[in-house]
């Protein structure tokens, strides 16, 4: 399995190449309200990933054919900046960004109370400024903080986290080398308060035990990231002295 047998991803002391333990996340920082022009916005740094999300609306849905008479539609555009990776990315939509936009929109629709805004559109723009594996998760986290910042009613926020498998070991939060040369990747969108899952993708294969362990790591990491998300929103709206 794998096919990259000669790439070492675990060190002799059991830690990973960047010195993290197998259930250790990369450092995450979140800031809400970074874009003055948007109704709501957030910036997430997850390891070396940088994702910025902006939310506009609710507004009248255009073109008319996308309108739904009983609910709002969520229009997500995920885009990687040309300079976000080592190889320049050709600007504009591609197969991968379309897929990520679609899964992000569908998972956000499951938490946003879309039935409150019939015929409307909520526009979510996710821009990846720097990429190092796990951008869809960083993008979803940024999008939910931006939606909360915009005052859009939601059942819960979504936290994007991923686990995977390298050298037959389940690890939390793959970095670029582990994603490229590892055996599996399991990004999920978790609703932190209920533990429900809003989206789940799997690349590679995991046994049932490995899957359960990976999900355990993901739930643990989602709790940690959720605290950072709440803290970011609170920091933005701290009251001054009376």
């Amino acid at each position, binding site marked *: 399995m794998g096919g990259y047998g000669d790439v070492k991803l675990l060190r002799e002391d059991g830690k990973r190449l960047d010195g993290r333990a197998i259930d250790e996340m990369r450092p995450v920082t979140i800031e809400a309200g970074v874009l003055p022009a948007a*109704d*709501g916005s957030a910036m997430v740094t997850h390891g070396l990933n940088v994702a910025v999300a902006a939310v506009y*609306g*609710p*507004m*009248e849905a255009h073109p008319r054919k996308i309108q739904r*008479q009983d609910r709002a539609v969520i229009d997500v555009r995920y885009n990687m900046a040309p300079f976000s990776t080592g190889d320049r990315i050709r600007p504009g939509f591609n197969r991968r960004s379309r897929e990520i936009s679609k899964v992000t929109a569908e998972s956000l629709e499951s*938490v946003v*109370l879309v039935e409150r*805004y*019939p*015929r*409307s559109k909520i526009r979510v723009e996710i821009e990846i400024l720097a990429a190092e594996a796990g951008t869809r998760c960083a993008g979803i986290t940024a999008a939910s903080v931006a*939606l*909360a*910042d*915009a*005052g*859009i*009613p*939601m*059942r*819960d*926020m979504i936290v994007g986290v991923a686990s995977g498998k390298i050298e037959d070991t389940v690890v939390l939060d793959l970095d670029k080398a582990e994603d490229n040369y590892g055996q599996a990747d399991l990004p999920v969108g978790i*609703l*932190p*308060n*209920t533990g429900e899952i809003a989206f789940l993708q799997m690349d590679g294969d995991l046994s049932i035990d490995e899957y359960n362990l990976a999900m355990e790591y993901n739930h643990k990491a989602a709790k940690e990231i959720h605290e950072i*998300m*709440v803290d970011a*929103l*609170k920091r933005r*709206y*701290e*009251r*001054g*002295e*009376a």
Partner: protein
Amino acid sequence: MSKGQVGAEQRLVTPGMVIGPSSGKRAGTGTIAENNEFIATRLGWLNEQNDVISVLPINSAYMPRSGDLVIGFVAEVRNNLWFFDVNGPFQALLPMSLAPWKVEFGSTRQHLGIGDAALARIQEVDETHNMVLTMKGVGLRRLNEGAVVSIPVNLIDTVRGQNNAMLSRIRDATNCRIIVGDNGRVWIHGDATDMHVARQLIQTLNEEGHKNTFQGAVEALENERGEH
């Protein structure tokens, strides 16, 4: 609706946060009841009044309701009606029958053109956000002078205060005529220096309205302007 800023520290909630058990209480705006618990659906301050738990949102889009006093800009003109931008998700419609003038078919443009501001009231809103405005009513008119500035919708109560107390103080302090629309638009009219002062005050509100410092800013202005 009052801000309820009395005494104790208010609790800031984020979407999905469990507020507490729902026994004996009712869910207000910004909350949903699920599995005998209240869950916040918006980012805001928790508020409890008469056993109704609600969230006062920190940031919200304007959602029109019938009876709202709004300041709108004409976005589109047809032969027998106008479409207004009222800061909501959809444009509002003003039929010529609800305009304060005797309008002939085809002469709508002589009364209000694109970009003109008007003070109107929302007559009705249906469940798909179609809105009808009326300009028949006391004080509803075309705004020919002064300036229209925007404030966040959730800060309207802060500007008005209890029974418009804060608004009267601002009017006195700035020596301007001020109308606060329910859609987050404020009309100011006065002489050039007074309007400048009023605009600066509203700028302060936009920047730090979510803090408790706005009242202090008004007091400072009153002291400063009182000395002249």
